[in-house]
């Protein structure tokens, strides 16, 4: 082996600080500050817990979306899938309630997880085995799931059996030491997601596939399997969100989860995950979901801007976030 005379200086091991990585958290802090200044009620415990609880569904689904997007995919079907899973779960619970009583809730939740996982598997297999653009595949399944829930509810509402409501209600409305259950469930999902993406071999493979699928393939990574699994994870996250969502309204309707896919993708992207794949930011995604919900809340509490413009402000934020990213990363 040829050795050069001068050994190179030992390179530094410390990680460099990238300011762009902190941008979502700085933005979140700013918005909370503005909210506090505008309306004193904003910072109250009740209001903050309410806002965070409302953001739980988008946050949970967006954790799954972070995996899909980090692996270079996209899932537009999450909103419709959420409604479909909700419908199936309610039907299962209602059907099981006479025989099993309150246990029907746990069994229905199990059904939801299985159905969510299968919906994700279906998306994933068409993308990887069928080799079709994820945008097109999930645009198709978005329509399919939406039509299914409309059919299942007969265009109206599919209510949860009354006998189950009292037992199921705490999953959304209950709290543990002052922290609502949906927030705790979100925290568990986030911690699991962060562990899976950052600390496991599978997470490493997800980002390598999203960064450059050819490099991954040449390195012996089963690109198709890794990608398919991200869609399954997405489906499971959708199911968890559905389990938390049902006790809130106690029914599934054709408009359940409508346009959530846009909120979910917005949360992921303003959280700093690249839409072209290769980097996933779980905590950034959580910040993104909170930003969306808090902005809506601040607008409702203040009289400055009509709350009918909430979607416009959210839309402006994703564009501003991307522009900020462009200008900070090009330097």
């Amino acid at each position, binding site marked *: *082996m*040829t*050795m*050069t005379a001068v*050994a*190179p200086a030992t*390179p*530094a*091991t*410390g*990680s*460099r600080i990238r300011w762009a990585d902190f941008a979502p958290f700085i933005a979140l802090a700013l918005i909370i500050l503005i909210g506090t200044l505008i309306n004193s009620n904003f910072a109250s415990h009740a209001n903050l817990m309410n806002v965070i609880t409302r953001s739980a569904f988008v946050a949970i689904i967006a954790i799954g979306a972070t995996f899909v997007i980090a692996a270079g995919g996209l899932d537009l079907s999450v909103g419709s899938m959420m409604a479909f899973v909700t419908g199936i779960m309610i039907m299962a619970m209602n059907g099981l309630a006479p025989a099993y009583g309150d246990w029907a809730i746990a069994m229905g939740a199990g059904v939801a997880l299985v159905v969510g996982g299968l919906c994700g598997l279906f998306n994933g297999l068409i993308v990887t085995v069928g080799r079709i653009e994820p945008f097109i595949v999930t645009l198709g399944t978005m329509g399919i799931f939406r039509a299914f829930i409309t059919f299942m509810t007969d265009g109206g509402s599919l209510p949860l059996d009354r006998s189950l409501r009292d037992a199921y209600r705490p999953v959304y409305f209950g709290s543990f030491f002052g922290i609502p259950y949906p927030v705790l469930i979100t925290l568990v999902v986030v911690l699991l997601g962060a562990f899976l993406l950052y*600390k*496991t*071999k*599978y*997470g*490493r*493979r997800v*980002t*390598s596939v999203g*960064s*450059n699928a*050819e*490099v*991954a*393939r*040449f*390195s*012996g*990574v*089963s690109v198709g399997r890794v990608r398919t699994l991200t869609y399954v994870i997405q489906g499971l996250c959708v199911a968890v969100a559905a389990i938390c969502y049902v006790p809130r309204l106690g029914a599934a309707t054709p408009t359940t989860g409508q346009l959530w896919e846009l909120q979910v993708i917005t949360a992921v992207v303003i959280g700093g995950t690249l839409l072209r794949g*290769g*980097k996933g930011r779980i905590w950034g995604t959580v910040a993104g979901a909170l930003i969306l919900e808090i902005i809506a809340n601040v607008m409702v509490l203040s009289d400055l801007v009509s709350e009918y413009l909430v979607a416009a402000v959210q839309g402006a934020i994703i564009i501003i976030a991307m522009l900020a990213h462009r200008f900070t990363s090009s330097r």
Partner: protein
Amino acid sequence: MTVQALAHAPSGAAPLAMRAEGLCKAYGAITVLSDISLDIEAGEVHAVIGENGAGKSTLMKLLSGHVAPTDGRLFMENGSVAFAEATEAEHAGVVLVHQEILLAADLTVAQNLFLGRELTRGFMVDDKTMNRRTAALLARVGSVARPTDRVGDLPLAQRQLVQIARALLEDRKIIILDEPTAVLANDEVAALLEIVRSLREQGVGILYISHRLNEVQALADRITVLRDGRMVGTWPASELSQRRMAELMVGRELSMLYPEKRPVVAGEPVLSVTDLVVDDGVSQGSFSLRAGEVLGIGGMIGSGRTELIEGLLGLRPSHARRVEVNGREIVHRSVRSLMAAGLAYLTEDRKGKGLLVDASLAPNLTLQALDGVNPGVVLQQRREVAELKKAVSDYDIRVRSLTLDAGKLSGGNQQKLLLAKIMMSSPSIIIIDEPTRGIDIGNKSQIYGFIDAMVRAGKACIIISSEMPELVGLSDRVLVMREGRFVAELTGAEINEENVAYAATTGRHTAAAGEA
């Protein structure tokens, strides 16, 4: 375009179509072409030959106005010319037919021919006239395509003819053909050569670039040889044999860059591949490798070497009668199964297939051997950093920080990182595709040293290289590929640049070498 008075009268009987004097091209500090002077007469075929990287393509781009020269002058019949862009050169009657097909696949043949210069009648596009003129041009180049055919539906050879027809749309004084036969089959090549001859008779000056020396000999009136961005000289074609052309193209002595040749030890066969067919026969062959041996695979770029190895690894559609690694038959070939059997492959496409340029060094290093470094489900980040530190010192990877993105490293350091990456699984058979493409001489020498050390340690190595000196300097045995088939096996004293170049360009084993 500036036109000055004719400064120099052309010499010789035939009218001069174009003359270049002292052309130079440098990109920053790197000179790719220096002091090229040649002329093209009307009604002649002037061939330009040289190894990959000799500067042929740059010269063509300078002559056709695609790139401006750093120094030097061009003359046409009306005097000195300087093309600011390709369209100016086209107006002056010089056109380059690119090696790659540059046509819009969804447009028709006629629409492609007249793209950007559509004929109109009032506000309307005059399809009728354009189709009629296209038909005449297609007939002239001997194409069977119709003006209304969609270009994407045509076979590659017909597209190449359409591209030539496009060059003939207006009267041309000079046509530059950059490897026009690279994509053609044998009978199509013959047809194309006929077209070139008929253009010559019509008084067009033709600059013809090709790797195929038999074509050059059959067609050219004069031949200019380039080597390392400089002119070796211009000769009448009748004075050069194919062997002499190959010698002039390489004409270098082996430098001290290469490690001393090891005594050849015929170890146990570690890899044997029988009847491997890749991409439905685009590339195919049988070969074997022994422990302690460096097998070189030579041939021109695009001769199917990379495809063969990627096929072996199951990265391309392929089938084989039998593949044995270290005495065990491999039934399901994949990167994983072959890696498990002790084989590793370093791709020629460092940034596209080798490294994650947006990821930092440790994930790059361990990606292929992730299961080896991390036995469980969870990543062992401390162990990854330890492996990285070891690789950085073993392979002398020069980095400021270990958290740098791989894309920020220099080419040479990227290549050393990639080498470290494939060595993570401790392979006994290492296949390296273009070991030193685009890296500086210091890193080259180091990489040659690493390869030598591996083989001395009893590993076996396959080197695919387009750089003849490298191939000759490293290999104990050389297989030469041409058009997806092995055409020659060179051993011992037969291994020299002339023999490799001769086999790569003519497809013949050089039996004359022993007699000469």
